């Protein structure tokens, strides 16, 4: 039962990702990206971490594609030109090698999922990983300031 659900979910995720990569219409690609991320949030639900799922939903599935759409609008780009054929073949070879290389390590057969409560993550986040947490906040601040500075029109 759950395997069926997983299969459907995984299939849709992969399909969405493929659309992102292969669609020549960039708006569709962005929508597919949102769709893929939305389904990945479902994956996190299955992994017993609603917290992660909702964060994935709010940030990756909602905010980031909207930002992407915004940029698409601002730069008035619509279509994606494909790369030259030879390069596509090279990339394909690399990708296959990559997937194959990763495949070699995929023998894990654990079956039991340990769910995690939001409180657990929160406590953990603010105790052991407090320093990375603070660093992340600084990173976000820097990103914010950096984005403003970069995107600001320089007035002559």
């Amino acid at each position: 039962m759950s395997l069926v659900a997983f299969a459907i979910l995984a299939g849709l995720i992969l399909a969405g990702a493929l659309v992102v990569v292969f669609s020549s219409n960039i708006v569709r690609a962005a929508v597919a990206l949102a769709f893929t991320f939305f389904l990945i949030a479902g994956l996190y639900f299955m992994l017993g971490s609603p917290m992660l799922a909702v964060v994935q939903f709010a940030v990756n599935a909602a905010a980031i594609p909207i930002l992407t759409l915004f940029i698409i609008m601002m730069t008035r780009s619509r279509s994606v030109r494909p790369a030259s054929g030879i390069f596509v073949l090279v990339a394909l070879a690399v990708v296959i090698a990559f997937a194959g290389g990763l495949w070699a390590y995929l023998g894990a057969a654990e079956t039991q999922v340990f769910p995690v409560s939001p409180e657990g993550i929160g406590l953990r986040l603010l105790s052991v990983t407090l320093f990375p947490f603070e660093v992340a906040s600084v990173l976000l601040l820097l990103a914010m300031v950096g984005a403003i500075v970069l995107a600001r029109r320089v007035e002559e």
Partner: protein
Amino acid sequence: MSRMPLPLDRHIKPKLVGYDPTRPRPGVERLAYTLFFGSLWALVVVAYGLVPALFRSQGWLDGALGFFFYAVIEALLAFGIAAVVALILIVVLRKYLGKVQERVGPMHYGPAGVLQTVFDALKLLGKEDFAPANVDPLIFRLAPAITFVSAFLMLVAVPVAGGWVMADLNVGLLFIVAASTLGAYGVVLGGLAQGGKWGMLGAFRAGAQLVSYEVPLALALLAVGVYSGSLRLSDIVEHQQGLWHVVPMFIPFLVYLVASIAELKSTPFDLPEAESELIGGFNTEYSGMSFAFFFLAEFVELFLLPALVVVLFFGGWHGPLFGLDPASFAAQALQSFYFLVKTAVWVWIFMWIRATLPRFRDDQLMDLAWKGLLPLALFGLILAAFLRMFVEVV
């Protein structure tokens, strides 16, 4: 209310004897609104109380099939609630705007025009769903659907009474934030898909506005979460047992109120559609069912955002129970009644704001979000943490 002379040649005289469309009929209207409210309440009681109780008592929920059916039925009921709310609110809003603007509003379909929406819906369903030539058909169709789904998603998390909630998420507050962010998709995609200038401008405005106001909104919600110590909405409501959050959390309340009106894209924040400037903005090219979805979504949100105000700040379902056992069915029904009443009051306030205030300029809009609300929301967050640590524990 003044009587307005109507040109006879544009007016089909109704068949009903003695009916005069120019004459207001407050008695009929009140009766109709009461009936609307009652039917909504009945639907809520059925969806939240009767059906789960039935399934639970028969033990159907244990089997996979029973659970599947339960889920389907609940989803349909939720959709039904959303549809009913939208249908009711459309006519109520039109009537109310009419009253504010000193006219009678819709009067022709149903007694005193109370069935107007039904005919509106029929008209929209009957119209050709037209898509201009240069649009991306997939995105064009997807946009209204996403809009409606995002509004509908929030409904799932709202608790209407003690134990009466469709999905009691332990991250409900974050879920609300996420779902409301999703609402921006429909607008942006809708504007983007049309390929026209109005749509594009509307999409720009909507995207900027929704994303900007998302930030203070989320911070205000977070303040409530910090203060009540839980992200679960029913816990937040329980936490207001003694004192409604509106008192200690007044600043987040204000922020949330303004930001949710902005999320609603209604006046004074209706820049994305702004008929006088953008001919409808992101929904310029929509017609028929697609337009109806946008429309529905808007009115479902007009119900849900006030409902969240009630849940987060005005004690949710809390009210006098007259000695009833809070776990009993009757008490829960009463609680859902309180909840709906409070929500109705807040819906009215939202309508009132919409009817009276003029529209912002877009730079004022941004200033308000980033320079006004954001610092206020941050202050509210700190205040909430302070209260949580030093006042409430003592």
